[in-house]
């Protein structure tokens, strides 16, 4: 039997993606991890250098009274940020998708476009607009509440430790709800009408059709949306930075991993930047995201049953 020639064309096709991805993603990632194993030193005469310290930075980050509470604060804020997305953004996205997939709703394309629009706008713009809307000085949030006679409920939402993070999470939900909606919609549209019709003939209510036919069939999408939300939220930075700056005020109540990393790496106010410690925080972020994704891969995706339609 003649040996098949080495499939050179596969290499050629893969090369651009592999090279670009290695140069711009994998190499910086590994280099950042390498940096997290070093600490700055001051030599005789004031020259600055870097010395290898092993996992010392990680130990400091997890145990030093200066760092550990900051990390814990950022991590728990990040968990809350993620939880609000999972509990509000994704269910609302799913409901919208179900509504928009129904043939009974008129003007579906219009709604779809309107709801998706904020996701394509710049986060800086979104942050700025919402800052203005919620500003106690110029904002319209008080007037809007006034329409319902609830003006006394208006608060400086972004200025209170108790409300700032929830407010920003909801702003982020408002911006991003279009993405799960589109993904769910695409999955729902893929379900053959015969299945739904058969269920209705068998006497299923709309509620029954959704829970017993549609939802099981879009479970893979539910998983994908969850993992995308997870990765996106634990990498989040831009909205907090735009509205509250790197200081993530008030009193770090909106500090998430991304802003903690930025503050540490680049420095803020009078505190000079600390690149090695920043890289360490980036390392912890990678670890958190990696473990979340692994849980998804082994705990969820592998158990999904493929259903031939």
């Amino acid at each position: 039997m003649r040996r098949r020639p080495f499939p050179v064309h596969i290499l050629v096709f893969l090369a651009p993606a592999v090279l670009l991805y290695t140069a711009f993603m994998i190499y910086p990632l590994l280099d950042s991890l390498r940096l997290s194993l070093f600490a700055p030193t001051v030599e005789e005469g004031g020259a600055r250098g870097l010395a290898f310290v092993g996992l010392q930075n990680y130990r400091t980050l997890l145990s030093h009274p200066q760092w550990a509470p900051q990390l814990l604060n950022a991590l728990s804020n990040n968990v809350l940020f993620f939880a609000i997305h999972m509990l509000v953004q994704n269910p609302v996205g799913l409901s919208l998708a179900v509504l928009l997939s129904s043939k009974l709703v008129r003007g579906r394309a219009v709604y779809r476009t309107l709801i998706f629009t904020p996701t394509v706008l710049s986060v800086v713009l979104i942050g700025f607009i919402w800052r203005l809307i919620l500003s106690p000085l110029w904002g319209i949030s008080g007037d809007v509440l006034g329409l319902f006679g609830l003006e006394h409920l208006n608060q400086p939402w972004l200025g209170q430790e108790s409300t700032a993070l929830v407010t920003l999470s909801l702003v982020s939900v408002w911006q991003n709800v279009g993405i799960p909606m589109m993904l769910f919609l695409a999955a729902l549209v893929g379900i053959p009408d015969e299945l739904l019709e058969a269920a209705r003939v068998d006497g299923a209510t709309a509620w029954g059709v959704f829970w017993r036919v549609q939802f099981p069939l879009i479970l893979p999408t539910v998983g994908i949306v969850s993992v995308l939300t997870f990765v996106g939220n634990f990498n989040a930075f831009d909205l907090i930075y735009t509205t509250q700056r790197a200081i993530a005020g008030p009193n770090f109540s909106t500090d998430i991993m991304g802003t903690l990393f930025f503050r540490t790496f680049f420095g803020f106010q009078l505190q000079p930047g600390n690149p090695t410690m920043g890289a360490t925080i980036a390392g912890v972020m990678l670890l958190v995201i990696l473990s979340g994704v692994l849980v998804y891969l082994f705990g969820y995706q592998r158990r999904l049953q493929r259903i031939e339609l």
Partner: protein
Amino acid sequence: MKLRLGLVLCSTLLGAALAQSGSLTIESWRNDDLTVWQETIIPAFNARYPDIQVTFAPSAPAEYNAVLNSKLEAGSAGDLITCRPFDVSLDLFQRGHLAPLNDLPGMENFSDVAKSAWITDDGSDVFCVPMASVIHGFIYNQDIFAELGLSEPQTYEEFLSLLQTVRESGAYEPLIMGTADQWEAATMGYQNIGPNYWRGEEGRRGLIDGTIGYDEGGFLAAFEALAAWRPFLMNGYQATTYPDAQAAFTLGMGAVYPAGSWDISVFNQQAPFPMGAFRPPPPEGQEDCFISDHTDIGMGLNAASPNQEAARLFLEWMTTPEFAELYANALPGFFPLSNHEVTLQDPLAQEFVSWRGECASTIRSSYQILSRGEPNNENQLWNVSARLLNGEITPQEAAQTVQAGLEAWYEPQQGE
């Protein structure tokens, strides 16, 4: 554009033999001053050195340190670096980013106090040309004062009852300040009224020597005095940023604005009503008074700049009486630090600077030495002052937090 380019080319060719040429970029956090630099200072410099092109390239104040650091590391920073006082610039110098300026002609025009913010601990190297100091106080809306029959308070108690009168009038906010950016609470709050309580330099040096702490005496009393502002701050101050507060004051929404003298130039342009200023009033029964007269801004030379000679010419020019006069009057509220006699035309700026004659001056308590460690003393003051005004903590808690932060790393404060 083409014509200008042609002119520049011509003058460069002609002037090459006569003078220095080159182009300089100035890094700064003073984005409020962009037009002043473009329209007043740079043209005046070019009148003397027509062949040196100068670009003023500011970034946002809150991001300046971080942005500058990364630019210096990457080698893309401008030739002239606007210097924050004390450790931030000292750190840049020690890392070799700022060139020593000991032999710069004209440095003899500055006193030791003026240079203190930009000198190594042993006094051997100066690395920035001192430009200006800023003074804290209160700016008020004269129309509102006249309408409500108010006059400048002489004591802190009078100040608080004045704010109460404005509150009761219902028409205006008594005190225009936000805490969203946090630094206002510490800088225009705590460091503004504080020196009267910790007796200026006496208290500040005590902190450095370890003979007094933030949780006792004047430093604690200053937190208590600051906490009295809470009922008088504007509606929604917790989410009000510094530019928002500036805008609210110039729109005539409130009576009193806790100010840094740098606010004067912005207010002069924007406020349609006459303004007055009073210094932080001392508590009842205290004879002497203290003000914060903080060495705030200097200019250094990027050691990696390819235009060293042109940059040195610019710095040298900054030590002249011409520059002092120009800068002080173009930017009322930034008071020159050189020994030249300068006349201020702006009445508000004149009022601020007149306090130098009435009260003893000091600089902000946390800037020298105390912000070297982690946690950074200044950063902690921002945080606790904002939380104090937001009503999240008591003055005692604020004082204890800062003191604990200082004791965590500063040996003289660790005591017995």
